[in-house]
C-alpha cells in the first residue's frame, strides 16, 4: 500500500504518494524532479546524495521517504538564491574545486552544514567533516581551499 506523505522541500510544501520502500533520494529525483542529489553508491558511503532533514545532515539514499512526513528537507536546489550563488558555490567555481561535478552538490550541502555549525573551521576540521563526500577527480585539495575561502568570506574577511 502506498504511503501519503506531506512534507516540506526547500521551504515549499509538497505531497506525494510512495511505496514504503522508496527512499527520499528516489522521491526527490523521480517524483519531485529534483535531480541535483546524486546516487553514487546507495549505501551512505559517498555523500553525493547529501541533504538536510530538519537541519540534520544526512544521506537521502538512507532515508525512507515515508520518514519525512511533517519534516523539512533541504536539497542542493535550495542553496542558491535567484540573485546569487552561495559563497561556497562561488568559491568552488573560483578555485576549480570541481572537475566532473557529480560529487559537487553533495559537497556544497555538507560544507554549508559545516559552516553553519562552525564558521571558522581548521583545514583538518574541514577534511574530517567532508570525509564522507568522496571525490575522485580533484584529490580534494581545491575543494578544501574553496571551503576555507568561503568560510573567510562569510565571516567578512577577505578570502
Amino acid at each position, binding site marked *: 500500500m502506498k504511503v501519503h506523505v506531506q512534507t516540506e522541500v526547500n521551504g515549499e510544501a509538497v505531497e506525494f504518494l510512495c511505496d514504503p520502500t522508496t527512499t527520499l533520494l528516489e522521491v526527490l529525483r523521480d517524483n519531485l524532479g*529534483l535531480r541535483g542529489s*546524486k546516487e553514487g553508491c546507495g549505501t551512505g*558511503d559517498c555523500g553525493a546524495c547529501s541533504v538536510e532533514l530538519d537541519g540534520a545532515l544526512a544521506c537521502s539514499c538512507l532515508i525512507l521517504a515515508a520518514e519525512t512526513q511533517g519534516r523539512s528537507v533541504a536539497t542542493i536546489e535550495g542553496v542558491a538564491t535567484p540573485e546569487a*550563488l552561495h559563497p561556497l558555490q562561488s568559491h568552488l567555481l573560483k578555485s576549480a574545486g570541481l572537475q566532473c561535478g557529480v560529487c559537487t552538490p553533495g559537497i556544497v550541502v555538507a560544507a554549508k552544514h559545516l559552516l553553519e555549525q562552525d564558521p571558522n573551521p581548521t583545514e583538518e576540521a*574541514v577534511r574530517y567533516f567532508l570525509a564522507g563526500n568522496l571525490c575522485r577527480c580533484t584529490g580534494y585539495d581545491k575543494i578544501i581551499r574553496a571551503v576555507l575561502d568561503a568560510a573567510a568570506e562569510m565571516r567578512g574577511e577577505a578570502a
Partner: protein
Amino acid sequence: MSEAMDFKVIGTRPIRPDGVDKVTGRASFGADFSLPGMLEGAVLRSPHAHARIKSINTDKALAAPGVKAVVTGADFPQVAAGAIEGGEGGGDFADLAGNVIARGKVRYHGHAVAAVAAQSRAQALAALALIEVEYEPLPAVLSLDAALAESAPLIDEGLMTSGLPEPAAAPSNLASVIEMGNGDLEAGFAEAALIIERRYQTPTVHQGYIEPHACVGRWGQDDQAMLWCCTQGAFDVRSMTAKVLGQPVGSLKVIPSEIGGGFGGKTTVYLEPLALQLSKKSGRPVRMVMTREEVFRATGPASAATIDLRMGFSSDGKITAAEAIMAYEAGAFPGSPVGPGTMCVFAPYRIANFRIKGMDVLVNKPKAAAYRAPGAPQALFATESAMDEAAQKLGIDPIELRLRNAVEEGDSAIYGPKFGPIGLRACLEAAAAHPHYTKAKDAGVGRGVAVGFWFNVGLQSSAEVHINEDGTVTVIEGNPDIGGSRASMALMAAETLGVPYESVRVVVADTETAGFSNVTGGSRVTFATGMAVVEASKDIIAQCCSRAASLWSTDEDMVEWRDGAVHPRPGVNVEATPLSLKDLAGQAGRMGGPLLGKASLNARGAGPGFSVNLCDALVDQETGQVQVKAFTAIQDAGKAIHPSYVEGQLQGGAVQGIGWALNEEYVYSPDGIMENAGFLDYRIPVASDLPMIETQIIEVPNPGHPYGVRGVGETPIVAPLAAVANAVSASAGVRMTELPLSPPRVLEALDQA
C-alpha cells in the same frame, strides 16, 4: 609554437562555462534523464566466476508483473572479430559483444547473462530472480601464475597466443606476447657494478568514478535509435553499440550526458546495447543504471600486474642494462594495456642494452578497461622502485641518479622514435630545487621520489565555431567535458579570435550535431580537440579577412587579423576603419551568410608528458599504517591553458595514485567473488587521509600544437605509486615491492626488516 608568445587569455583562470550548472545541481548526468513511458532495466549477472551456461529459461520472468521485455545472449547477433580503433587501446568487437552479454559461458562473477525491462525497477529486480539459468561451474583462474600454469583451465578454448615467433601449437590463457629489445643485454649486465633484481606486483584496482554507468535507450519502429548515456566518447559508444547490435552506425544517435568521472573506465559499452535491445523488444524507452556493486563487479578495472625487473648500474649510476618481464591480467577477454606498459617501463631513461617482454593473460575477472595512462603506473612502479634502491645502494641522490640517465630532446625512446622537446630534465631540476625536497624531513618520515611518463595521443577531432549576429561565439565539439575542457576550448577560441573569454560558449554536442571525435581520453582533448577549435577559429578569421578585403575592394593579402579585427596591413593605402568580429557578424547576412568555421583533423604531434613526484610518508612502526605527510607533483604541461584545471589534474592523479599505492585492491574469495565491491571496503582516499597536494607546472612547449599544449591528464597517476612506495620503504627501513601498502603488508615487512 608558443615560445615568447604573448597570450591575452590563455594561462588565465576564468570560471568554466558549465560551472554554475554543476554547483547548483542543474547539470544532467547519466541517470538524470527520462522519457515518457520509460521502463527501468536491470541485469542478471553470473553468480560464478567461470561456468558453462547449459540453459536459460525466461518464461516466468516474462510473465511477471510489469515486465515488458527480457533479453539474453540469444537476442544478439554474432559479431565478427575485428579491432576496435579509436583511443581505447586494444580490444576486439567480438570480445566486446561477448562481454556485454554472455553466450554459452560466463567468464567472471558479475558477467551479464540476461536483462529485464519492467515498469519499475522493483519489478525488474523481482523478475531477475525468476530467470532460471542452469550452470555447469568450471574451475576459476584467478591469478597470473594459475592462468599460465601447464594444465590451467582454459577461459577461451579457442585462444591461440599471438606475437610468438612460431604460431602457438595449442590454446592457452596467454593472449599475446610483445617483445622489444636492443643492444647486448648480458654484456650490459657484465659491465654493471650493481644489479637490482626484484619482482614487483600491483593489484587489480578500479577507476572509482563516483557516477555509476547509466543510459536511456529508445528504439523506433523505423529502426532509428537514440541513446543518452554518460560516456567519455559518444562516437565510440555509437560504433561499439551499432556493432554489438548489428546495426548501421547512422541509425544510432548518441547524446552524451554530463559525465561523473571516467578515467578511462567509460570508454567502452556495458549497458547501452542491452537498453536498446530491451527497447526494441518492448517498444518503450528503457533506462538502465548500475548500482555501485555492479560497477565494481562488472565494469573494467585496471590490470593487476607482475613485473620481474633486472637493472644494472655502473658505479657512477649509469644504467648499463635493463630487463623487464611483464605479465598483465587482461580479465576475461584479451586486451590488457601491457603493450603501452612495455613501452613505458624504461621510457624515461637512456638504455643501450635492454630487453622487454610483455604478456597479456586471461583470468576470470572482469575485462580490464583503460585507467589513466593505461599500463604505465604498474610499469613505472617497478622501474622507479628499482631506481630508488639503486640510488640508495650507490650512495647517489635519487634525483641526481635520474638526471644522469634522463632522456632529452633528440634521444631515441627505447620504443623507437626520437623525442622532440621534452620536460623530464626540467622537472627533475625543479624537483631538486623544490622546498619540499630541500627541507629537512620530520623524524621517522621517509621521502620518496619517482618519475612519471605518458605518451599522450592525438586522434580524430572536429569542431565548429559559430559567430552569432552580435559577435558572440558558440563552439560546437564532441568531447564530453570531464574536467573543465569547455573552459580550455573557450580560452583557445577567445585567444585565437581576439574576443573576451566570456563571449564564448562551448557546446558538447551529440553524434548527429558535432563532427566525429574520438574519446575524451589519452590526454588528447585540450591537445587535439583544442587544435580543431583553433583551426576552426582560424577558418573564421580567413572568412573575415576575405569579406573585409572585398568590402575594402582590396586583395586578401592586403589585410590582416589583429586584436579581434581585420585591419589593412601596415602601409596599405585603404580608407578603412578596422572591422571587428562583431562588425562583420552584424553584417554577415549581407556578406555571404553566417560566419561558420569548421575543422576536422587527425591530430599529430602529441608531446610526451613527464613528471616528477615527491612524497613524505610516515609509517606507524607498531601497526604498519602509513600516513602521507606531504606530496608534490611536478609535471611538464607544455602550455597550461587553464592552470587551475592543470593543477587539478596533477592533484587528482596524485591522489588516485596514492590510493593505488596504499589501500585500493580487489579482494577475491577463493572461488572468484570480489569481496569488497563497495566504497566502504574498496578504500579510495577520503579527504582526511591527505595533505594538500602541492603542484608545480613546468612549461616546455610542444611544437606540435599551436599554443604548445601537451596532454596532462594521464601522466599524473604514473609516478605516485613508486613515490609513495619509496617513501614508505625509507620510513619502514625495508624495501616494499608489492602494492597495496596496506597495514598488514607493511607490518609483515617490518617484522622481516
